[in-house]
Structures are given as C-alpha cells and as structure tokens.
C-alpha cells in the first residue's frame, strides 16, 4: 500500500516536476552560468569563467538604489492609503454593502495593469492634472516621466493587494474587545493602538510583503510612466538584453536581483515569527 501510494504520488508530481525543470530550473541555471561568462564582442554570450560581471555591478548602482528607495516608498504609501480603507470596510461598513465594496476594490486589480498604468499618462501629462493646477494659478508643474509619476502608478497598481490582507486581518478582530475597552474608559486612539493595530499586523505584514516583492521586480510602470528616465532594476535588466546585448552582465544583474529578493523574504519570515502571523493568514488572490 505504502509503495503504491508513493508511486501514485510520484506520478502525480511528474508533469509539474518536468515543467519546473524545463522552464524554471534550467533557465535559472543558465542565468547563473552565464553570469560568470563574458560578453560576446558582437553581443550575446561568450563562455568563460570570470567574476568581472559581478565586479561591474556597481555600474547599475542607480537602478538598484531607485528600486530600493521607490519600492519601500511605494509600499509605505500604499499601506498608508490602504489601511484606513481596509479599516472602514472591516469595521464601519454595514454587512449589506461589504461584499459590493470589497469587489469594487478587487476589480481594478483583475484588469490589465498595462491599461490602468497608461491611463495615468493622460492624468499626469501636460494636459491633465498639471493643466488643471495651472488653471488654478498653482504654477507650472511637471508630473509625467518623474519618480513621482512612477510612485503614483505603483500605489495605484498595487493598492488592492494591500487592502485585502489588512481587511482579512481586521475582519477577524473581535469587536467586543473594542467595546470592552471603551466601556473601561479607554479613548479610541488607545484602543486602536493597543488592540486594533496589533491585531491587524499580520495583514499589514502580508500586504507589505506582497507589494514589496512585486515592486522589486517591477518593469512596466517605470517603463510607461518614467519616460525612460526612472529606472528600476527590471528596466536595467531589459535594457541589458534588448539594447546592450550583454547577456553575461545581464545575468549577473538578474542573480543580484534574486539574491536581494531572497534576503527580503528571509527578513519577512523572521518578522512573521516575531509578529506571530499564521500561515493561513497569508493567502490572497
């Protein structure tokens, strides 16, 4: 019985295993190997073993710096905007409206981020919000193709991803606790700080983590709203393969990006232990 069960398991895992081997492990192995290679004079990859590509990583310092400032900034901005909304949805809204309002949050997330991002070209372009502000005499302002535009796009794109886990966490909050606190004379800010906020931490952690991971690998939003000027590592990476044709260095940048993400995930896992997030709180989608 045990043997057949093991065999059945192996059979069931075969398609997934082959798939991962061919399109996940093999490509990642190639990237790792290429990252120690050299650039072919006419572009592409030339075999070799050198640490030159890694030594050259500081040449993309700006892209890493942009990513590692704008990604946390975008995460925090999304969190600050999402938290009150999640709080409102979880605690203030009547049951009747809850589902509808929740769906309204998730709908934009399910539509193409490409289309939602390019909509901001209008709003931030010279004939959009800046023209409006100028009409009110607020002076000339340039928004499109700036880090600010990218930040707006980021917050806009990933807001739903932040609202949901926080909502789920707050939803579990036992409201009688809040009532008890208020009965005992605690001011609202105190019961928020001592009860609501700690209880919602798992959601905050999950949402922040999801958004941060996605932002670290972001390419599309800077490409559309950054005008080629605001570069994330993802953009630098695409450039290395589609313009400079430097596969070896591109592979090294990719490896560096993966390492950064692993570090972030490791830090998150530690934070999760500290805040006591349970596994089943982490689900979203």
């Amino acid at each position, binding site marked *: 019985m045990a043997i057949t069960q093991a065999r059945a*398991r192996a059979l*069931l*895992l075969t*398609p*997934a*295993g082959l*798939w*991962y081997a061919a*399109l*996940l492990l*093999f*490509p*990642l192995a*190639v*990237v790792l190997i290429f990252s120690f290679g050299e650039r072919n004079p006419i572009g592409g990859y030339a075999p070799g073993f050198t640490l030159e590509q890694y030594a050259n990583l500081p040449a993309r310092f700006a892209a890493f710096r942009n990513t590692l400032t704008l990604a946390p900034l975008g995460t925090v901005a999304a969190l600050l*905007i999402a938290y*009150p*909304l999640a709080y*409102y949805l979880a605690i*203030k809204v009547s049951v009747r409206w809850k589902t509808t309002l929740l769906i309204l949050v*998730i*709908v*934009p997330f*399910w*539509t*193409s981020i*490409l*289309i*939602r991002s*390019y*909509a*901001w*070209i*209008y*709003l931030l372009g010279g*004939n*959009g919000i800046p023209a409006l502000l100028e009409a009110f005499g607020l002076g000339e302002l340039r928004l499109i193709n700036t880090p600010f535009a990218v930040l707006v796009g980021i917050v*806009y794109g990933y*807001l739903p991803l932040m609202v*949901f886990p926080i909502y789920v966490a707050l939803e579990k909050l036992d409201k009688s606790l809040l009532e008890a606190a208020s009965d005992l004379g605690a001011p609202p800010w105190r019961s928020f700080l001592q009860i609501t906020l700690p209880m919602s931490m798992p959601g905050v952690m999950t949402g922040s983590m999801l958004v941060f*991971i996605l932002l*670290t*690998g972001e*390419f*599309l939003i800077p490409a*559309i709203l950054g005008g080629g000027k605001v570069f994330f590592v*993802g953009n630098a*990476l*695409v450039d290395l*393969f589609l313009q400079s044709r430097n*596969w070896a260095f*591109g592979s090294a940048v990719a490896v560096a*990006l*993966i390492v950064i*993400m692993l570090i972030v*995930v490791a830090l998150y896992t530690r934070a999760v232990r500290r805040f006591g997030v349970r596994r*089943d709180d982490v*689900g*979203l*989608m």
Partner: protein
Amino acid sequence: MRFYAVAVYGFLYLPIAIIALFSFSAGRSASSMDGFSTGWYVRALSNPFVMEALWTSLKVAFFSAVLATVSGTMAALALTGMKGRLRAIFDVLVMIAVMIPGVVIGIAALIALATAFSAINPWLEVVLGRQLSMGLGTLIGLHGMFTMSLVVLLVRGRLETFDRAQIEASNDLGASPLGTFLQVTLPQIAPAILAGFLLAFTFSFDDFIMAFFVAGSETTLPIYIFSSIRRGVTPEINAIGTMVMVASLTLLIIAQILLRTGTLRAKG
C-alpha cells in the same frame, strides 16, 4: 471616514473611467472628448491585427490555464499530507516560481531556450526537417509554469483545510481510491480548482513581460497595446482597453456567481 473611502474609490476608478470616456470620442485626439461615437470600437474590432492579437491571447490563456490547472491540481493532491525531501523540494520550487519577478523569468527563459534551440536545431533539421523556435509553445509553457504554482497553492490550501475523516470514512465504506477521489475529494476542491483556472487564465491574458520575451513573432494583446502606446495613445487603444476591462469584469462576476458556495472566502 466615508468621505475618505469615496476618495480612494475615486482614485481607483478615475483613470479607468477616463479611458472608457475617451474611447467614445468621435474625434481623432486620444486626450479630449469631441462628440460621441462608437466608431473606435468598430475600428478596433475590424482591425485584423487587434483581432489576431486577441485570438492569440485567448489561445495562450486557455491552453496555459488548462495545463496549469491539471498539473497543478495533480501536484497539490500529491503534496498534501506528504513529508520528506521531495515535499521540501516542491515547496521551494513553488515559492521560487511565485517569488521571482516576471522580468527575470522571462529573460531567463529567453536566453536558456535560445541557447538550447540553437544547439538542438541543426539536429532536428536533419532528423525531422523542422526547427524549434519561440512562439505559442514557449509562451504557453512559461505562463503555465507560473500559473501552475498558483493553482498548487490554492488547491493545496483547500485540501489542507478539509476534513480528512471524510476520506477515511469513504475508504472504510469500501470505496475505491478513484471513487473516493471523484465522490468526496473532487467536489470539495472543485471551487479552488475553478478559482485556480480563472486566476491562471486572467494572469496569462494580462501578462506582458513574460510574453514580451518568449512570444517570438507572436503578438498578444498586451504586447500590441504596449507597442501601440509607445507610439502615442489613440482612441482605438482606449476602446480596446475598455473592452478588455469589461471582459475581465464579466469573468470576475461569472466567477463570483460560480463560487457563491462560499469557498472563495477560504482563499481570502
């Protein structure tokens, strides 16, 4: 508080509304409203490249979602209740697949497949008279690899929460393993499988970055839209965008109705 919520919803829907509004403009300018017309929809729908890109996207989304759902569900069934090294390996694989950015996966697949193809193709040419190249196959493969991981997570989550006593009871009552699976397990996890399928489909349909690298000469709808907006937004692109959003919305509503059984909440 309510005012704040209204403001956030405004933030979420304003750009979408503007796209939808301008798509009905009668004028040529994509950034102003000159009269009302559905002409740009007619134009978009009669543009052979748009329709071809749409068709490509639908094909890729459907086949990659089917394959991802089947193999993802199989893997989830095997992994549930499993221990040992194999389980650990798969856990890591699923996590890597979900965590690594699409741009890295796309580029990695591109250079790996390009290298492999150029090594294999001279032989294939001799043996089969055909060659491998980037295209629908690589695109379906890569989308499916990623979305399969989502399916594994969803279905396994569902499998782990349901009552294993039911399976034992079914076995005790003399049902065959297949019978138990079909009668007990499958109905329990069906909503998660369906949700996984829809998620996989939507992801593939919307994905730009992986497709950008491994689509070869194929043009999916997001690739078409991306290369179009590089040359300036037109009302036609707005019309396409509006239709895509309405389609996604419809899909979402259908999913909601199908999953009314309450299992959607289990996955958050």
